[in-house]
């Protein structure tokens, strides 16, 4: 085994007709870590994930999972929850989970045992005989989680996992992800809402327009950017914010602002200016948010949102 890499993506490209969905993408997902694939909609995340899952073929480059090229064999090492989720509506919960687990290579006995365990964990044992169409949205989302993890793989891939989840299930999924990492499993997930994942990811890969713009350890990346962002809470006239030079205001409301400090501007000057105009409740110098890192890496004008292929 090479290092501790679980998923290695090497110089990957994929073209659909004339659209270059993915171009020369490379990144490594290390074992036992949470890896975030970030970028706006249409940046090529789903296409990359589908290739990792061996759902669509690779045009150029290579993907290896535990040093094996992607194949039906590597599919079984992965638990995948796609962005477009769904279940057979007319099938019973139990039958459906057994079917999906068997497709991942489990024997019928193992499948039943694991399904019992997870249904128990989610207080859902009495759903076993229910038809999926009768379940509420939240309930069927739980069944979807079970379907993803039931075969106890080493690698988990979630594509936009939090989109469409209700708050309770969002929390539940976060818990599951953290729990899986504690067990030494590898997790890769994608999202276009970067603020959502800052607390969870160990490593990230930023996508824009089919290309990787930044990849690495999230802590290191943030450190590299330095503490160049001010979080400020205040009361009073906020119009002074418009007068500030060499800053970018990312997040602004009546009594809050997130200010990115650009070249040759000092936080102290901003504070002085602020005191002159408003009552300052909080002035906090922090590392930039992921969103800010993305914008400053790509440049505001280069963020293209295109149709997801």
């Amino acid at each position, binding site marked *: 085994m090479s290092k501790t890499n679980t998923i290695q993506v090497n110089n990957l490209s994929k073209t659909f007709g004339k659209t270059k969905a993915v171009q020369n993408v490379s990144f490594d997902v290390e074992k036992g870590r949470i890896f975030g694939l970030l970028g706006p909609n249409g940046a090529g995340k789903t296409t990359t994930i589908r290739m990792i899952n061996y759902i669509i073929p690779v045009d150029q480059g290579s993907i290896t999972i535990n040093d094996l090229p992607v194949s*039906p064999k590597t599919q079984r090492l992965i638990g995948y929850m796609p962005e477009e989720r769904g*279940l057979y*509506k007319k099938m019973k919960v139990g039958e459906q989970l057994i079917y999906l687990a068997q*497709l991942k290579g489990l024997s019928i006995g193992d499948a039943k045992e694991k399904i019992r365990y997870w249904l128990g964990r989610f207080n859902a044992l009495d759903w076993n005989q229910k038809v999926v169409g009768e379940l509420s949205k939240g309930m069927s989302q739980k069944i979807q989680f079970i379907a993803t993890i039931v075969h106890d793989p080493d690698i988990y891939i979630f594509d936009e996992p939090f989109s469409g989840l209700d708050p309770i299930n969002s929390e539940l999924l976060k818990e599951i992800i953290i729990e899986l990492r504690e067990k030494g499993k590898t997790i890769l997930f994608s999202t276009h809402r970067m603020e959502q994942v800052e607390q969870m990811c160990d490593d990230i890969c930023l996508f824009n327009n089919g290309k990787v713009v930044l990849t690495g350890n999230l802590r290191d990346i943030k450190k590299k950017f330095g503490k160049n962002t001010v979080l400020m809470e205040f009361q009073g006239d906020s119009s002074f914010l418009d007068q500030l030079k060499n800053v970018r205001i990312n997040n602004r409301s009546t009594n809050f602002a997130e200010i990115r400090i650009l070249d040759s501007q000092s936080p102290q000057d901003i504070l002085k200016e602020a005191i002159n105009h408003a009552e300052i409740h909080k002035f906090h110098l922090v590392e930039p948010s992921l969103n800010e890192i993305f914008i400053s890496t790509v440049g505001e004008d280069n963020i293209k949102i295109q149709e997801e292929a």
Partner: protein
Amino acid sequence: MNWRQVFLVLKREYLTRVKSKGFIAATLLVPIGFIAIYGIGILVVVWESDVSYQIGIKDDTSQIVTALNEQSPEQYLNLSDISIDSLRTLVQTEEITGYVHITEENISKNIPLELIYSGSGGMTLLGTIRSDMRDVFRQEQLKRAEVSQEVRDIFATRIAMDSRRLSEDGEETDDDTAFLSGVGFVMGFIIFGAIFGYGGYIMRGVIEEKTNRIIEVITSSVKPIELLTGKMAGVGALAVTQIGIWLITVVGLAMLAAPILSTFMSAQSEDLAAAESMAAQADIPLLSNIPTIETSLIIYFVVFFLLGYLLYSSLFAAVGSAADSETDTQQLMLPIMAPIFIAYFILFQSSRNPESVISVVGSIIPFFSPIVMISRIAISDVPFWQIGLAIFLMIITFIGTMWLSAKIYKVGILSYGSSAGFKDLLKWIRQ
């Protein structure tokens, strides 16, 4: 291809369907519906021949009108005393359907008759009046020629003709052509219906997986070709189950009915002879003994049924994968529907005239063979090379359609949002 995965898909497709209420209802209702459609069809034909009309007869000889009145007093009114002008008024005011003016010359010199009428009533009306007139005129002419009653009876007879088949090894058997022609048509029709029915099952199944959005979960475990194969095999097994149930029911009922029918027949064997001659007069084949369907025909039926199903089902799956909802399938369905319907039209020809050029050619063209060939096999002795060639061509074509469909299916199942057109399909095939 991993056959374990294929089998898992097959099992799911089969079990979820076979246990569904829809399947049980269809198994019971389709034969009832089939009989009902034919019953209604026969009723419509019977009704149609029953036209109500009233024809005024102005007969200068008064002999014809008397005979007509004897034959059907309701339809022919003796209006000999009324002037032509009044008759015309009666027609115009729709008191009578029309009138015929008969003179001595019509009888003696065969001058054609003329019916003056409002123009409604159609072909059946004209045909009925014409045949009534012919009968009565012939009777009158025979009477005038002073022909004896014997000779008149001779004119009234219609000789019956029975047919028996002589096989190559000199065996003579009862000819069941009329019956077998019916069997051939029904078998062709069942295959026609089955291609649509089970093809539709597959198409809806594919669309369901797309709209449910489960397809991506499935394709992260199963290759598209495995999924497609499993689906086709699962629905195929379902088809065999359903047709099997129907076949066993029919055979079972026939076996139950045979002894009852034969005791009934022997008890009334004298009446039977009379009934037979009557049937012969009316050109209706009366089945004095129940004709048998050969086992080889049933085997051929199953073979052509399965090949026809396979040939078309993968295409239905491809259409389903390209569409985003069932209502979007119509444009793409056209190239599949066209050959099935052409085959259905050829079936009318082949079940009446199995050796005609169009029947023979149609039965060998792969997209038509399943429907056309089975009707030919049922009725006549089709040379084996033709059957063999048809089967061979169907297998080759099946491989082709499967290859094509697999390419479309692979891309189609993962394209959400909009339904694809023919242009997209071509692109997917080239990919």
